[in-house]
């Protein structure tokens, strides 16, 4: 009976053109429009290369760390290139600055000095990069000092005097620190530039929640007060729970296919970056679809309105939820998070979007798990209410 209903629910849902449009086609179309609209905006708002000069005095030539970092940040082949750098004398740098050919120049004397004449974004960036390099350089120096003193205090050293291992080990540790720091610097700059990712995360959230329409339609077809066929199903000697479970699983399966198609489309066609945690991303999609399904089942069982009204409710709440979680601009998400956090705490679209966001931006899993647990609680409540309202159901009118 379970398989019988599952098979025919799949057949029916897949032949419903309207449902297939909302589940499969609409998110793809919307995603394509997003790409067309936002990629232009992002291109326009992309940081332009900052013209700078570095005074190539002796101190700069001797500071390998500083030299390497600027070489990297000015490299034409580096996707995260920030600067167009000229290596000149201090007087020449001054002239360039006066003529407005550069935003600022850097002189390394005892401490690095940034010389600017204006106060803007470019100048701030130059200052921040120099500060960051200085602090990293200090860390490296500290490591070398600590390692050296450790080694000098070591008994083995006292017996064998300086060996090749000593310089090699310090060199490796310093190198590792440099590598880590440079990666950190690059990653941070990259992510801050690509803020439109959140629109695509809400798109996936929308895809997950739109799946609720499938669940709602599937359940409606088993409810005597909602459809003619539901009346026929209701008088059959089949457990309602079995019917609803098999219908729900069938709609969940179609929903997952729809969302994974969207997911693959966003990765390969729209070039959306979901970070490196693919397992968690997929887990999140499964859970997002469960939230969508339970929302659909909940609306189907709680509301006594007709199917079209229920579809309207699901589309409306999903769109509103996605809007509040940043679909039309990340600012909205910040405004709600700051002023009405309760809204986003109970908004499944935000839970999904925020979990994607967390996976991409943060290394700590706490906020991701918080969203996952919120989604589980949301789904649990919806399913519990649905089961309660369906048990041994007779109607006042049909």
């Amino acid at each position: 009976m379970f398989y019988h209903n599952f098979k025919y629910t799949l057949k029916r849902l897949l032949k419903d053109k309207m449902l297939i449009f909302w589940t499969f086609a609409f998110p793809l179309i919307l995603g394509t429009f997003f790409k067309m609209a936002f990629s232009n905006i992002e291109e326009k708002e992309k940081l332009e290369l900052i013209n700078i000069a570095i005074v190539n005095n002796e101190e700069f030539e001797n500071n390998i760390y500083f030299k390497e970092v600027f070489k990297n940040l000015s490299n034409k082949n580096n996707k995260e290139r920030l600067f167009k750098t000229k290596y000149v004398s201090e007087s020449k740098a001054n002239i360039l600055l006066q003529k407005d050919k550069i935003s600022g120049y850097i002189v390394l004397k005892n401490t690095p000095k940034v010389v600017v004449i204006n106060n803007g974004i470019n100048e701030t960036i130059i200052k921040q990069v120099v500060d960051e390099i200085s602090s990293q350089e200090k860390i490296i120096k500290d490591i070398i000092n600590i390692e050296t003193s450790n080694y000098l205090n070591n008994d083995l050293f006292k017996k064998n005097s300086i060996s090749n291992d000593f310089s090699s080990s310090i060199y490796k540790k310093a190198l590792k620190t440099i590598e880590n720091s440079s990666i950190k610097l690059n990653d941070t700059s990259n992510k801050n530039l690509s803020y439109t990712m959140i629109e695509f995360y809400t798109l996936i959230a929308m895809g997950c929640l739109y799946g609720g329409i499938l669940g709602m339609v599937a359940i409606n077809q088993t409810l005597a007060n909602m459809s003619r066929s539901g009346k026929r199903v209701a008088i059959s000697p089949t457990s309602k729970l079995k019917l609803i479970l098999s219908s729900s699983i069938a709609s969940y399966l179609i929903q997952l296919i729809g969302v994974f198609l969207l997911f693959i489309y966003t990765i390969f066609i729209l070039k959306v970056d979901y970070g490196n945690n693919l397992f968690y991303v997929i887990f999140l999609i499964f859970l997002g679809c469960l939230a969508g399904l339970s929302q659909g089942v909940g609306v189907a069982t709680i509301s006594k309105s007709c199917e079209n009204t229920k579809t309207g409710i699901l589309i409306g709440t999903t769109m509103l939820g996605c809007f509040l979680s940043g679909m039309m601009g990340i600012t909205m998400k910040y405004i709600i998070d700051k002023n009405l956090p309760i809204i986003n705490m109970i908004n499944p679209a935000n839970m999904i979007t925020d979990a994607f966001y967390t996976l991409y931006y943060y290394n700590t899993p706490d906020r991701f798990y918080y969203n996952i647990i919120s989604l589980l609680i949301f789904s649990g409540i919806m399913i519990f209410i649905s089961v309660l309202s369906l048990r041994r159901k007779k109607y006042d009118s049909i």
Partner: protein
Amino acid sequence: MKSIIEVKNLTKEYRNLKALNNLSFDIFEGEILGLLGPNGSGKSTTINCILSLLNYNSGSIKIYNQEMQPDAYNIKKDIGVIFQDIAVFEELNVYDNIDYFCGLYVKNKDERKELIKDTIKLVGLEDFIKFYPKQLSGGLLRRLNIACGIAHKPKIIFLDEPTVAVDPQSRNNILNGIKKLRKQGATIIYTTHYMEEVELLCDRVIILDKGKIIASGTCDELKELINIEEKVTVEGIDINKNLLKKIRDLKNLKNINNHEKTLIITYQKGKNNLIKLIDFLKQENLPYSKIYSERPTLNDVFLELTGKDLRD
């Protein structure tokens, strides 16, 4: 005969409206029971209560001596329902629709295949099994609706106005199908407001009006209730008050109704009433276009008992 459905003091209210008012009746094994009444008389509500789809305020419903409940699956497996509205899936073809609903009752695939084959033959849909509902005419759609309700060979079948808006060919097909089902041993509860169908099919009739049983019995028993032997209709006649008075004085006459050049005369008893009337009209030299005699129908019974027509 053994009673298989027992309805006692069934009352159902919608706010202030009593949809069913203290209904009590039995349905016996193997019979075709007609529930007759105008629209809104409570026929469908009665069926929905029996099927445990609707809540009711008071009373009890027992099938096979067991209280009917939404989860009384052992009773439900023997029930088939053909609803007034077409209840099929637009996305499934004829065969799949029947298979889906039959599959809710019969698990075994091979057994189901045989049942579906028999049902398709019974309703005459052999040439349409790959058709989708939207490709079918109204009559064929009704036949599919019936097939979905009876494919599992139920012992008790509820037919709720199955011939509404059906062409004559499909109507005959449906009525013949019902007779065949009865021959196969099914107990049938047939609701309609077409008294001709009731007279043709039903062993027993319950007449409902405003949620109340106003009469029950066989067709002949019901007709006897109103004490009408014959009904004569004269069409295309122009008659004055004096002549009307003379007709009223004719023997055995119970009632006379003159409306728009049509004269309807009901007689309580007696023989040769029609001949006597023709002689009278000839004697008075009164022209008319048509004259015919009928036995009273259930509509006359309803008219007599409620003062209104069944199709009002």
